[in-house]
């Protein structure tokens, strides 16, 4: 019986780091957009916050594309 402990450790570490990173990025984006809404409501400029918010969500979108790349054998 051979157990591939190294692969096991890799899967565990990658899962925790990548999952937390993606969720943090989307949460950060949502937070930035919240701030932007609050500033707009107060009549202040919010362009930079809107940009930060949507960039974060766009980054998460790239992660989804990478996931699709991994899933579709045609690309390999």
């Amino acid at each position: 019986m051979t157990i591939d402990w190294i692969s096991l450790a890799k899967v565990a570490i990658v899962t925790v780091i990548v999952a937390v990173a993606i969720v943090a990025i989307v949460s950060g984006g949502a937070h930035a957009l919240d701030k932007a809404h609050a500033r707009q409501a107060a009549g202040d400029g919010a362009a930079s916050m809107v940009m930060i918010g949507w960039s974060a969500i766009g980054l998460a979108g790239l992660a989804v594309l990478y996931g699709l790349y991994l899933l579709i054998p045609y690309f390999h």
Partner: protein
Amino acid sequence: MSLDADHTEGEVLSTTLLIVCLVIVTALAFDFTNGFHDSANAMATSVATRALSPKTAVLIAAVLNVVGASLSTEVAKTISSGIVEDSLVSPEMVFAGLAGAILWNLATWLFGLPSSSSHALFGGLIGAVIVKAGLNGVHMGTIVSKIILPALVAPVVAGGAAALATAVAYKISNDTKSSQGIFRHAQSVSASLVALAHGTSDGQKTMGVITLVLIAAGFQTAGTGPQWWVILIAGCAIGLGTYSGGWRIMRTMGKGLCDIESPQGFAAETSSTVAILASSHLGFALSTTQVCSGSILGSGLGRRTEVRWSTAGKMAVAWVITLPSAAIVGGLASLIAGIGIGGMLIDMALLLVGALLIVRQSRKSAVDSKNVNDSGEVNVRTRTAVTEGAAA
């Protein structure tokens, strides 16, 4: 297959054809149960948080399962991935193994318990092989390294990731309407990835089984890919199964383990997606069912909400007994199938009766797309419970 002196070549051919047809029909039935069993893996959290309506959720999952199933049509080299001695596996054993897996999938569905369809299939095959060839036909080491260890690891890894990710999500984001909207959309996207990943792995499994049996029977050249009609019917079977929803399991996973909010559902689905993709690309295969259940449980812990450990405990028991239970049914079916073609027909009849009885029992406390979110309990009413209920 050697020609019997009493039988003409034509008779042998028609018997082989009948066996192959029986295997294909049971393989498709298994694919259907596989679909409705695992619908919840992808969609339970999205249905529970109402990010998607139940009907939309299963439609998306079904379409993505079919797309996933047709994306990759590389045939698996062996049916059992080395868990049993593949040279011993005959079409009759595959048939018996599938029968065991179908009955076990239906039984766990009745109780609303998510359990791994692959474990059920391996269990059924193991039982069939033990009956025919003894314990020597089973590779115990591979069972430990490919089934038992991953089953222990999957919920811990996915659950840990989901717990941390959920805690981070609640720390960073605010509970506003806009945030909730973003989380709901993000949750639907990650759930869709789980459905697609499921299609590429499980959708292909049945195609592989059918193709290997066609090759073994001499209807197809060794080393060739699945026929177009095999891809078509296997894709349809898993898609229809997924669309039918498996609402009992959906309820347990979406409502039974813990209450799920959108950020938490998003964290759980993201952890599941990452765990599934990482495990299939870094060489340590984890079961989708156990990853997804672990993520949901972990997300509950991460939000520090109440986790219903009694439900989690029942699920753990189901996981432990899946393999041996399917093995017992598979072994019995294999014994009966050993009689010959008549035995396989008896198996088929018994399987139908068993399936009908389970479906009939489920009707007494039906769970469907309309009442899936109404409670977290999946009741299996016995006759006394019904009369008590009527008296009360």
